[in-house]
């Protein structure tokens, strides 16, 4: 009895005396919200590895950014809004320089908090499309393009196939989407375009809990016979949709998705998936000096959770692209402020002055990886062009030149939505953050 009490006491004492983790370390704190578990992990693991590996590589190769180490920490969200908010609260007190929610659902509650807590939110090509308006959302960044740009590019591509958008009159376009904030985002623009160009829009929502059972939606597709199918899916929804499309013999070359399907998603559907198309704005493959460095400094040393052959896959590179923006945001912030240890406020300025030129990309070891990107105080997005890539059975192949989003169609709707958001949230703070001229 006494022995047990002693042992317990000892255990308690060691617990109390155990050193607190990492908190005391010096560096720039970059939390990564990732999901390696749950129904969205099929997409999330690639992204998590890509983001983490690039930042780790900077730490290993260069000793961080500008000589300051990056403290990278993952927080598991499982793509669950509740856990995401919990992660945010957990990291908030450690003074992160920015957060990357990696879920539209998690981004939305963080948008009003960002300005209060002085933590910029980088929601790369997801989140609230209207937050591209930097004058109204100074703390939110969603480069390089919004879901509305994505839709505009897809419709433009479809128009090109038919010989001009005017030829879309009388056509039928199906839209299969994840019935959550993410999939609903492009609907207003879609309806607008359907009215303007005279095509018929058929919607097939897929509930988050029913992602792996889409037979009823695809039954609907078979009945309606749309001329083209557009998809906004994520996680387990993508492979299921591609499989179902193959099963009902839908012509795959007329099935176009926004930028989220991975190689695995298409591969799972077998040879029938050939011709399936997605948007993309960066290169696939590992033939870039920086990615070779990741291999050398991170993967070969066993510091990555990614298998070697997944380097260069589309979603891995997407994660790397996200980390380039993180790193460049921090580096620009260091340049703008002249400080080494930057804060969230500095990085917000850094992101607004971000200028990722072709020369800079080359310097980073990413020559030709993506188009140059320049953000300004009023434009937090860039609205960059993206290209269409096609699944050839083994890999993604670029099949078009970059397609410019229809700014004339997207800009008014973005302006209206941003205005609407500010009006609905009475007391939305006016932008007081000064704009840096140096960029």
């Amino acid at each position, binding site marked *: 009895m006494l022995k047990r009490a002693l042992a317990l006491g000892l255990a308690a004492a060691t617990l109390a005396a*155990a050193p607190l983790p990492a908190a005391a370390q010096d560096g720039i704190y970059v939390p990564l919200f990732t999901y390696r578990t749950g129904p969205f992990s099929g997409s999330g693991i690639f992204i998590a590895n890509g983001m983490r590996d690039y930042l780790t590589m900077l730490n290993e190769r260069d000793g961080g950014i500008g000589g300051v180490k990056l403290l990278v920490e993952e927080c598991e969200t499982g793509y669950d809004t509740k856990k995401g908010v919990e992660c945010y609260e957990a990291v*908030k007190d450690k003074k992160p320089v920015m957060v990357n929610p990696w879920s539209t659902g998690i981004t*939305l509650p963080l948008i009003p908090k960002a300005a*209060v807590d002085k933590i910029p939110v980088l929601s790369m090509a997801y989140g609230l499309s209207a937050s591209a308006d930097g004058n109204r959302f100074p703390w939110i960044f969603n480069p390089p393009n919004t879901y509305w740009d994505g839709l505009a590019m897809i419709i433009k591509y479809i128009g090109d196939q038919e010989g001009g958008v005017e030829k879309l009159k009388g056509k039928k376009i199906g839209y299969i989407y994840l019935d959550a*904030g993410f999939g609903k985002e492009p609907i207003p623009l879609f309806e607008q375009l359907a009215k303007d160009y005279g095509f018929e829009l058929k919607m097939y*929502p897929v509930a988050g809990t029913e992602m792996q059972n889409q037979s009823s939606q695809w039954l609907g597709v078979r009945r309606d016979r749309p001329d083209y199918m557009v998809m906004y899916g994520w996680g387990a929804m993508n492979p299921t949709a591609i499989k179902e499309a193959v099963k009902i013999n839908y012509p795959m070359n007329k099935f176009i998705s926004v930028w989220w399907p991975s190689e695995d998603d298409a591969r799972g559907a077998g040879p029938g998936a050939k011709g399936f198309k997605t948007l993309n704005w960066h290169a696939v493959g590992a033939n870039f000096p920086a990615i070779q460095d990741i291999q050398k400094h991170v993967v070969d040393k066993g510091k990555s959770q990614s298998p070697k052959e997944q380097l260069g896959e589309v979603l891995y590179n997407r994660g790397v692209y996200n980390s380039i923006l993180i790193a460049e945001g921090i580096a620009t912030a260091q340049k703008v402020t002249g400080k080494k240890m930057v804060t969230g406020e500095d990085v917000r300025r850094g992101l607004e002055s971000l200028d990722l030129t072709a020369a800079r990309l080359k310097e980073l070891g990413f020559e030709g990886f993506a188009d140059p990107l320049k953000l300004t105080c009023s434009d937090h997005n860039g609205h960059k062009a993206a290209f269409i890539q096609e699944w050839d059975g083994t890999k993604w192949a670029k099949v078009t030149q970059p397609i410019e989003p229809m700014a004339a169609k997207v800009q008014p709707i973005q302006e209206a939505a941003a205005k609407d958001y500010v009006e*609905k949230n009475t007391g939305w703070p006016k932008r007081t953050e000064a704009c840096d001229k140096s960029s």
Partner: protein
Amino acid sequence: MFYREAGQFKTSYAADMAVFPLREDRIGIAAILLIAALVIPLFGSGFLLNVVMIPFLIFALAAIGLNILVGYTGLLSLGTAGFMGVGAYACYKLTSAFPGVNIIVWILASGFFSSAVGALFGLPSLRIKGFYLAVATLAAQFFLSWCFIRLPWLVNYNVSGAIEVPTRTLFGVPVTGPNAEPATRYLVVLGIVVFLTWIASNLVHGRIGRMWMAVRDMDIAAELIGIRLLPTKLLAFAVSSYFCGVAGALLVFLWYGSAEADVFGIDQSFLVLFMVIIGGLGSLLGSFLGAGLIYLLPIGLRAFLPAIGIDVQPSTVEHMQFLIVGSLIIAFLIAEPHGLARLWQTAKQKLRVWPFPY
């Protein structure tokens, strides 16, 4: 030794029937309330308030609501999250239609909408019982989830289908929205939860509570002694849904700050049901203990492993959490099927006679 009622004489019936007949219990409750109302908001970090205390109290309130239905009246329900959602969306619609009215009033009023919906889905409870009723309430859950996703009117035609909580003030201090201090929000949640727990305690210890328990123990016998089943069961549904609705409104307005429809999914219903079962059916204390165990255990585990120097990936912790919470639930149910509340009763009894058990 700690619970020795020797020397505490009851001189009236009221004192004998009190909820806390022992002086030690009363001191304990007062101490807990004092800590909750003063010490925690004064000294607690943002993390403790935001991630630990606020959700714990909100889930405890939802568990009390479900406990009234399942534990006190014996009607199994799987629609808890749906009823919580009704409260949240009702509060959102009310405060966007009448922004001038104090948000606390709307949070408390939104429960009545939930009540009405709950009573409506409670109607079949007179004819169907047990698992069949569970299936009927499951239908309510699915129907309500469908409404939250499909009716854009509920979210004021917001494109993203999410509700965003506007800033609302109480005596000039923001209580909702991004500018609200965690301590303010915590105190509001604490106030509402304590107030409603007090109401619930009075309900279940009084005539209505005894009616519910009579129906739970044997509905035919209850009918024979003059309890009308339909009004009693519907009242249980209405009161239970009221608590859940207020919990839902608190969840969105004072914790998340914005919500998508999937917050009120079926898994949330199961979570609250687990809290009630683990905590103890038919016990208000059990609702708090159950919410504490189910909600706080994963957070504790996540903090515990790094604190003892084991560096694990967050995803591994996530997997382990499922394993540990799952096995703990089974272990608890084998060791004490009547839940944590009964464990506490047993412990109290032991403490009373300690150190001389005979």
